[in-house]
């Protein structure tokens, strides 16, 4: 039943191209289910491969072996002409944010909306809603490069969520946030999961570990992902 909803990793292996074969791979035989309607947290030391896993789940990187399934479809096996449009269901928050500095805050949020078949005023409506959630309404006209680090990160999250994606992949979403905003972001991600999205957070932020909205915790160490109980506290 779980196979048919959410993101599933099956025997996922990943090794950076060009690296020596005797070096250990970044990910090895990863088996995981990120179910629909849940928030999953992936922890791990720096350099353990959390970002790499996010990119694999978003279909930005190809696994060297194994597959990523989304809603029962082997997305990682698809050719790019099918995977490119599939990515419209994914909202990804990059660790390095990847905002466009010379656009305004509102225009950055417009980017994921442009190719979708909705009207201009509907787009504006969605952006307005998202800006309110991120607490950035007053800055809609400001150029992105005049924002503070934390504001930029909230903008990156807003951009991932603005098109109401089915799969939300957030890489260190609270890294630059104060406690109040970190809690707000977690609550926001939980709300989205309750509405039926699949939320995966990759983070080593200790504040998240104690956050009670998390349904599943995973730990990434020495290329293997170990899953943990649902909402019963970390092992």
């Amino acid at each position, binding site marked *: 039943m779980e196979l048919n909803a959410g993101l599933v990793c099956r025997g996922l292996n990943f090794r950076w191209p060009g690296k020596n074969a005797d070096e250990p791979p970044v990910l090895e035989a990863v088996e995981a289910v990120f179910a629909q309607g849940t928030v999953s947290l992936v922890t791990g030391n720096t350099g353990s491969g959390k970002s790499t896993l996010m990119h694999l789940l978003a279909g930005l990187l190809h696994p060297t072996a194994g597959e990523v399934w989304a809603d029962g479809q082997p997305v990682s096996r698809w050719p790019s002409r099918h995977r490119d449009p599939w990515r419209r269901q994914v909202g990804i928050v990059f660790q390095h944010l990847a905002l466009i500095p010379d656009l305004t805050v*509102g225009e950055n949020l417009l980017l994921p909306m442009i190719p979708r078949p909705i009207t201009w005023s509907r787009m504006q409506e969605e952006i307005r809603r998202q800006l309110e959630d991120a607490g950035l309404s007053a800055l809609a006209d400001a150029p992105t490069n005049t924002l503070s680090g934390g504001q930029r990160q909230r903008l990156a999250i807003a951009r991932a969520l603005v098109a109401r994606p089915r799969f939300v992949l957030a890489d260190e979403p609270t890294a630059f946030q104060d406690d109040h905003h970190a809690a707000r972001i977690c609550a926001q991600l939980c709300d989205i999961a309750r509405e039926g999205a699949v939320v995966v957070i990759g983070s080593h932020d200790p504040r998240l570990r104690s956050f009670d909205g998390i349904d599943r915790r995973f730990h990434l160490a020495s290329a293997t992902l170990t899953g943990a109980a649902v909402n019963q506290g970390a092992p």
Partner: protein
Amino acid sequence: MYRPFAEKNYRYPAPCRGARRLLIIAITASMLLGIATAADLLRRIAHQDDGASAWMRTMNFSAPALWTAGSPMRHPETVHPGVDLRFSAGLVTAP
């Protein structure tokens, strides 16, 4: 409560005003120029140098007055057939 700035952001957070203005300018300018040219073309085609043609016919001229009097192109009937007009001095400067 009246909040002009909040109101503006509230309705159109990413208005792209400049871009839409650019688009409108590009479209109207192209249409105006295109229509003006087409209209002028049609007007010219509708009535053209009929006076000139009629005088050509009445006076039995062999060539129009596109070139100055005295040049061979103006009076081709006076040129000896052995002379190739293309090489007449002063007539066609570029080869």
